[in-house]
């Protein structure tokens, strides 16, 4: 699996340490062959009577060969040390640096999420308060105000109607009192007639007594009767006089009541007229106030609708945090994979002496596989952010299943 994912350079190249060893061996073998050839020539020359100087030169050549062999071994060791140091550095990068990068990304993501959550909460509070204000406005103002106005107007009209009805009732009572006055006049006339009848009866009784006296003894009984009639006549006259007195008193009382009723009716009429004017004035002023409040309420409603629209747009835009957070999480997870890969590379070198680069293609594939958003994939394909790859505020369609 790992060998399949290697970058081609790694699979075709021989590890650096192996190259150094092989090169050293080739160099050493060549030098030994050269030295052997020189020695063989010297030995042949000596046999032929060559000088001692030639032997010395041979010794020097052998010494040079040994010196170069030692230098090659030192170079090979230095190269291996450098490779180990390089791997140690990259492992340190994975172990110490990358987690710090990841921590910074995660911390930034958390801070952003916390800030956006707080901001959203404040928007929620604004929306709530706006709703409450609008509800209160709808209850107290506009329709509520118009209803209150109509209600008050009706009540005041009702009071005025009651006043008018009471006035009409008083007028009827006044008419009745006037009717009573006419009855009193009739009663007085009847009392006078009773007194007149009594006076005539008395006169008739006197005449009857006189005629009885002319009749002598036969008219004595009739004289008694005439006497009784005179008494009745006197009593009727007295009754008629008393009736006339009482009727006169009643008539005076009724007259006073009629005068009072007339005054009351006039005052009530004036009062009703004044009340009607006052009520109309109050209603007129109230109407002006309510109209002004209605206009104000309309403006407030329009403004509130505008603010709500702005808030809706803000709520859409605030969702950028979710998208950015996902991108940061995907990148962080990919970064978090690196330390393990670097440590594996180091372990492989320690174990086999082979330098194998980390599998960057597989790492990139993992990152691509973690994407959820179309613009993430677009960015990945483009290799850098672009206007086409960042439609953060574009609203998408809904799919119903």
């Amino acid at each position: 699996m790992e060998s399949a994912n290697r970058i081609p350079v790694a699979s075709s190249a021989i590890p650096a340490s192996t190259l150094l060893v092989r090169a050293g061996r080739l160099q050493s073998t060549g030098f030994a062959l050269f030295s052997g050839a020189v020695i063989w020539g010297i030995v042949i020359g000596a046999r032929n009577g060559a000088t001692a100087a030639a032997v010395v030169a041979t010794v020097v050549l052998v010494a040079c060969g040994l010196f170069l062999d030692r230098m090659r071994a030192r170079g090979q060791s230095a190269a291996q040390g450098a490779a180990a140091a390089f791997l140690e550095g990259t492992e340190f990068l994975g172990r110490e640096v990358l987690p710090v990068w990841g921590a910074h990304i995660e911390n930034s993501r958390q801070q952003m999420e916390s800030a956006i959550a707080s901001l959203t909460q404040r928007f929620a509070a604004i929306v709530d308060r706006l709703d409450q204000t609008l509800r209160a406005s709808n209850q107290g103002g506009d329709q509520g105000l118009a209803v209150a106005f109509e209600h008050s107007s009706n009540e005041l009209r009702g009071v005025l109607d009651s006043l008018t009805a009471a006035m009409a009732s008083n007028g009827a009572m006044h008419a009745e009192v006037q009717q009573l006055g006419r009855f009193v006049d009739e009663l007085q006339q009847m009392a006078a007639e009773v007194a007149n009848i009594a006076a005539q009866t008395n006169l008739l009784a006197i005449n009857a007594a006189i005629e009885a006296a002319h009749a002598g003894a036969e008219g004595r009984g009739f004289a008694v009767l005439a006497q009784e009639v005179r008494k009745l006549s006197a009593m009727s006259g007295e009754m008629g006089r008393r009736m006339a007195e009482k009727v006169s008193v009643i008539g005076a009382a009724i007259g006073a009541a009629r005068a009072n009723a007339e005054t009351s009716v006039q005052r009530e009429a004036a009062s009703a007229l004044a009340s009607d004017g006052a009520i109309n004035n109050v209603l007129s002023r109230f109407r002006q106030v309510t109209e002004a409040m209605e206009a104000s309420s309309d403006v407030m409603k329009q403004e509130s609708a505008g603010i709500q629209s702005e808030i809706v747009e803000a709520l859409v835009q605030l969702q950028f945090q979710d998208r950015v957070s996902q991108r940061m999480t995907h990148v962080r997870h990919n970064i978090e994979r690196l330390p393990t890969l670097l440590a594996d590379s180091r372990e492989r070198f320690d174990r086999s002496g082979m330098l194998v680069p980390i599998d960057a293609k597989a790492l990139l594939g993992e990152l691509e596989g973690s994407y959820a958003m179309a613009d993430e994939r677009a960015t990945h394909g483009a290799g850098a952010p672009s206007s086409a790859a960042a439609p953060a505020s574009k609203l998408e369609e809904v799919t119903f299943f």
Partner: protein
Amino acid sequence: MAKTIMIVDDSASLRQVVGISLRSAGYDVLEGCDGVDALKKLAGQKVHLIISDVNMPNMDGITLVKEIKKLAAYKFTPIVMLTTESADGKKAEGQAAGAKAWMLKPFNPPQLLNVVQKLVLP
């Protein structure tokens, strides 16, 4: 009586945005931060609709839909996937699991309410 809608998302701000939209329309809102939390908070109570993200820790949205559909009490509860996930394959998984709609983020609150009104249980 107000209807109850559950929103499941690992982003607190997203839950709040959805919550504002739903509460302003008169719904009661239950919140869950992932699939496991959502199942715990359902706890047998009446829910008229569930809105869930897809990519979440502990239990993702597709698994959550499958688990919910196993519960007799929520077998017919409509579920809307609200996600940034745009891959057709994932969408098909959601449909197969039993989701009723797939809505991509960022969402417009009136648009979300429109979807909710179409699907919410009576």
